[in-house]
């Protein structure tokens, strides 16, 4: 991960994520079938497809505009819970880097935080409710903390991934407290949260 990131690099990473969401469709669906309604793979797969199209059509150097546009495309493509949260994250991320054609490590930290806050505001889930928040929130915090402690963007990303995985694993034994999974009650205990798992997969893919 370079320190100054251009829109091409963002698009390239988004392209990789889009491909991943499409190839991991069935796996993500199977996670959601265990404690939800079994559509997460379908909706994220659709978003992958929509983003792929978006990347090919959108030609702007403004990374903020590029990210916000991606968010809107994602919401239209599949406005499920995770889809809407991903869309919200992209829109909020776009907002904080509006007008920029290059991103510094600090910009990345801001993007990360904006996505985290946006998801929490839109979905009203708190850490510990066993949602994607339990992966993205510690990851965003770890990223910022590592940068503050002098780490490179790459090192910070590695720490963030670790934090996301830990967050995911910590809530796995818990009961889902919000969303569709909360109705499944005690049977969610021990099952990995699909949203957490999706975030870890996507984030790993971005930083690799």
């Amino acid at each position, binding site marked *: 991960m370079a320190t100054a990131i251009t829109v091409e690099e963002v698009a390239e990473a988004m392209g990789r994520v889009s491909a991943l969401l499409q190839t991991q469709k069935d796996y993500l*669906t199977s996670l959601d079938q265990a404690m939800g309604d*079994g559509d997460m793979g379908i909706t994220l797969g659709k978003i992958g497809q929509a983003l792929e199209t978006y990347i090919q059509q959108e030609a702007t150097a403004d990374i903020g505009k590029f990210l916000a546009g991606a968010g809107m495309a994602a*919401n239209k493509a*599949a*406005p499920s819970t995770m889809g*809407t949260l991903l869309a919200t994250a992209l829109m909020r991320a776009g907002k904080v880097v509006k007008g920029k054609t290059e991103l510094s490590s600090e910009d990345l930290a801001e993007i990360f935080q904006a996505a985290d806050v946006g998801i929490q505001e839109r979905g009203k889930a708190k850490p510990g409710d066993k949602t994607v928040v339990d992966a993205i929130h510690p990851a965003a915090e770890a990223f910022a903390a590592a940068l503050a402690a002098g780490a490179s963007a790459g090192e910070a990303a590695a720490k963030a991934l670790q934090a996301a995985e830990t967050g995911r694993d910590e809530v796995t034994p818990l009961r889902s407290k919000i969303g*569709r999974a909360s*109705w499944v009650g005690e049977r969610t205990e021990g099952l990995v949260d699909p949203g957490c798992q999706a975030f870890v997969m996507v984030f790993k893919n971005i930083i690799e």
Partner: protein
Amino acid sequence: MKKIINDPVDFVPEMLDGLIKAHPDQLAYTEDIHAIVRADAPVEGKVALATGGGSGHLPVFLGYVGKGMLDGCAVGDVFASPSADQMLAVTQKIHGGKGVVYIYGNYGGDVMNFDMATEMADMDDIEVRTVLVKDDVASAPPEEADRRRGVAGMIFAFKTAGAKADQGGSLDEVVAIAEKTLANTRTMGVALSPCTVPQAGKPTFTIGDDEMEIGMGIHGEPGMKREKLQTADEISERMTEAILADLQPNAGDRIAVMVNGLGATPPEELYVMFRKVHDIFTRKELTVYRAYVGEYATSMEMAGASFTFMKVDDELAALLDHPAHTPFFTQV
């Protein structure tokens, strides 16, 4: 379960296209076929009602769009929320100058997108009010009733609030009726077999040949408990008792009853269950004010049923009796 479909990706748009072609006098759509409105929308000077959610629940949602019920609805892909855009398009199209009421089920995706639509409608100076449906007693205990999901009970809210709006009620009055209806409405369901989301291609869950799932949601969300299949009388007794324990009616109360099939369960079985509900009511000195037995909110080809009870006073009774005419619900 086998399906009569074409490419799964086209399932929802083709279904909607068929619906519009079958009911051209009743339904129309905005530029986006997922955003469906009454053919005569907007009805000027009337409070407009909208709902929305995933597809796969017919007659929910668009089967209730028409005179005396809803003005429009946005539907997404199977079991997936429509987008905020689509909800906004419906809102703009149905607004008759007196505001819009959203009545929809308490699902994360829907809530977030309706919230976004509300924010956007606000920029158009359309006053939007939201009433969330949280009628499923199986989805959370009474102390956490706010977490409950919305299922077939929403139809009673469409009916009474729709009647109130049809009678010229104000935005506040229509909202109040929807809230009063839902405060008096509870639902519980049971599922015997899963359903398959066309694009997923395999059943949402598996269940043994001699098992049932008490408290199952209408998207195949696991219920409260997996058990051995019981008789119609036992199942009916259990669901009735569970709902009544939550609703706490008094002897002499009038209650509208909906025995709803989830898809594959035939009306014959629903009437066998209704019979038992009626017997229990008689024993408890409760009156069945009106019976709705049939498919009102489904999960495609899922086998199973839900009971919805709504305690009525004179006001709700009269609104329930008000005529309605939609593609799936006609009452004279």
